[in-house]
């Protein structure tokens, strides 16, 4: 979940309320925001959930608190001025066909505002933007741009919303063009760079460019935005240095490109609200797709940002049944207003009480009326609701599998084993190399393991195909503790198996090891015999070869006629690998073998 660094003093200032740190954190907790500690500079590290992306900046958070305290109420939609600028869209790379944008004027970008804007951009990239692949933001100093004369309005349908109607016409407006470029035939100075480079060089040599090179690697022609002077942005990789935003910038062009129009439009709304909270005046931008532009908007014209509100209808009954108590109408309306929504009460012909609720354009999370009920609950304060034990009676029971597992554990403890609970994730090294086993061997524990695609740690890269290696690791980590060490585990293992619906076979396994001076095969065999007999099953142990065990001192575990595991004296190479200086005998077999004849 995104963690945002917020200066508490700045938050207090924007919220307009003196509130001490403890109360502030408690109020934030009630809204669903978790305090994760402080930075060295005394900023709060706050963890957000990915639904309220409009809270990812100090401005958004201040807005949430103002609503919470009732100092702001209802829907706020910033007014927008008529567009002067147009983004022409033509010959874009088909992989990245969509663009949106806005102009924001009259900003005073002090260092805090600039930091907050940069952080909001980063967090939106990380969440809605899917690391810039679905949507990427570029912010430019408008005064550094030279607009080309905008052509006359396009021939396509206008999707201009009802707020204002003065779309730019030829002669008056200015335009930039979102298009594509040859990776080698263009040159520009990228942000934080000091020499001209070709776009391909940027992806190879520039520190930001290299990080996002993968996003354009498959493209024949790269995304590009030009003004009358030339190339100024190479989305989604890096902006040009010419239009870089600084503390002296007052007017900004915000553009966003991506693979989904809805996503970039919503990201734009969130940025526009944040800049508007900083005193910026939002000016719409016309987005004109040419008739042959790739994607589904060819020939269409939009005015952005689209700050239209949406509506949801929710019944009074539903609110009461979800929150579990009665509410009067005024409380519901008050809670809606303190969530930044606006409700109108209506009584239907059948006497049903309901509310028509207006949703502001920065809310990307409201899909269903139930989401409105959640807002009402947060505004009312979930922790102010009285918990009650549900008036539902059912009879519970253990799953057959759990009963079997528990019975096996209990029997093993009775036989003198200490019960373990190990992780299901481990590494190739642990389950194969260190066990003297090859994944291609025809032996218990071998097989193609389930791999973690992007492992967090080199120690946890696969699901374990057998459990004995985990038990051996415990022995390895406890050589300073007293012996004998008789350890056992009943747990899950998994291996790739094409015949399974999921491509993975998962099953429960029983693994045990006896580490003790003078211990031999017979000690393991005897305990195994006792365990199997307790489940009314028969055990046979024909000799077998297994690379983890000593030849001639190992056997297959055959329960009720089925070969389900292995038992034996561990190979000296395995013992040395685990720093064990005494003999270890061990076994592992499938738990379901103990179910007995069905």
């Amino acid at each position, binding site marked *: 979940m995104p963690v945002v660094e917020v200066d508490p003093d700045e938050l207090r200032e924007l919220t307009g309320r003196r509130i001490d740190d403890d109360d502030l954190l408690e109020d934030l*907790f*009630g*809204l*669903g925001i*978790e305090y994760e500690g402080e930075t060295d500079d005394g900023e709060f590290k706050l963890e957000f*959930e*990915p*639904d*309220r992306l409009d809270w990812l900046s100090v401005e958004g958070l201040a807005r949430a608190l103002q609503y919470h305290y009732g100092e702001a109420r209802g829907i706020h939609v910033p007014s927008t001025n008529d567009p002067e600028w147009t983004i022409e869209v033509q010959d874009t790379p088909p992989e990245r066909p969509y663009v949106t944008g806005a102009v924001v004027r009259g900003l005073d970008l002090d260092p805090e505002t600039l930091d907050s804007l940069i952080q909001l951009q980063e967090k939106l990239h990380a969440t809605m933007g899917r690391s810039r692949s679905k949507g990427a933001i570029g912010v430019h100093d408008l005064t550094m741009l030279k607009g080309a004369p905008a052509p006359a309005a396009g021939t396509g349908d206008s999707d201009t919303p009802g707020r204002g109607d003065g779309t730019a016409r030829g002669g008056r407006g200015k335009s930039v063009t979102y298009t594509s470029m040859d990776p080698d035939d263009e040159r520009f100075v990228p942000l934080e760079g000091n020499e001209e480079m070709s776009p391909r060089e940027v992806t190879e040599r520039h520190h930001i460019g290299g990080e996002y090179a993968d996003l354009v690697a498959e493209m024949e022609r790269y995304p590009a935005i030009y003004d009358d002077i030339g190339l100024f942005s190479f989305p989604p990789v890096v902006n040009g240095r010419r239009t870089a935003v600084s503390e002296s910038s007052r007017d900004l062009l915000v553009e966003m490109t991506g693979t989904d129009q809805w996503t970039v439009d919503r990201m734009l709304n969130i940025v526009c609200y944040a800049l508007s909270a900083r005193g910026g005046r939002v000016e719409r931008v016309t987005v004109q797709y040419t008739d042959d532009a790739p994607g589904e908007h060819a020939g269409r014209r939009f005015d952005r940002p689209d700050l239209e509100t949406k509506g949801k209808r929710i019944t009074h009954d539903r609110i009461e*049944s*979800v*929150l*579990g*108590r009665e509410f009067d109408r005024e409380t519901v309306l008050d809670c809606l207003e303190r969530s930044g929504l606006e409700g109108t009460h209506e009584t239907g012909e059948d006497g049903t009480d309901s509310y028509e609720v207006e949703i502001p354009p920065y809310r990307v*999370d409201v*899909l*269903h009326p*139930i*989401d409105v*009920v*959640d807002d009402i*609950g*947060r505004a009312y304060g*979930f*922790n102010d*609701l*009285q*918990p*009650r*034990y*549900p008036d*539902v009676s059912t009879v519970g029971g253990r799953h057959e599998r759990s009963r079997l597992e528990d019975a096996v554990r209990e029997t093993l403890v009775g036989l003198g084993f*200490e019960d*373990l*609970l*190990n*992780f299901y994730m481990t590494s190739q090294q642990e389950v194969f190399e260190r066990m003297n086993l090859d994944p291609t061997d025809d032996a218990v524990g071998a097989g193609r393991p389930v791999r973690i695609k992007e492992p967090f740690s080199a120690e946890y890269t696969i699901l374990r195909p057998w459990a004995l290696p*985990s038990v051996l*690791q*415990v022995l390895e*980590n*406890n050589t300073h*503790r007293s012996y004998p*060490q008789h350890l056992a585990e009943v747990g899950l293992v998994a291996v790739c198996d094409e015949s399974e619906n999921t491509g993975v076979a998962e099953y429960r396994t029983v693994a045990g090891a006896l580490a003790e001076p003078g211990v031999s095969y017979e000690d393991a065999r005897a305990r195994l015999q006792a365990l199997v007999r307790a489940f009314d099953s028969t055990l046979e142990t024909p000799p077998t070869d297994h690379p983890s065990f000593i030849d001639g001192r190992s056997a297959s575990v055959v329960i009720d006629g089925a070969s389900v595991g292995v038992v034996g004296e561990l190979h000296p190479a395995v013992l040395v690998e685990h720093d064990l200086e005494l003999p270890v005998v061990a076994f592992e077999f499938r738990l379901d073998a103990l179910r007995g004849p069905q």
Partner: protein
Amino acid sequence: MAEELSVRDLMGTFTEFYRQFGITDLEFKPTYNPYTEPSFELFGRHPETDELIEIGNSGLFRPEMLEPLGVDCDVMAWGLALERLHMLATGAEDIRDVHGTLVDLEYLRTEEVTY
């Protein structure tokens, strides 16, 4: 699952569940899950370190989850952390002593079994 379940029932279930382990200061933080709404993370305070620790996640299944399954009831859902519950209930500070391959056999052999 029942005809009518509310967030109060959900809160009551966990208040009672954790009370059985001596945890009586449960707090509910509204959160987001794609499949439940409203959703809550459950927090309890560690008896030794005084840290507020998340010990579970829960919610009421969204209508979009239930309709395709033909379930015309309210359904509560949750996932609770076993090791964190253990830490809050016993004051254990390093869960690696209790399970996983770094487990300390001496700890397992001497620690009082409470449940």
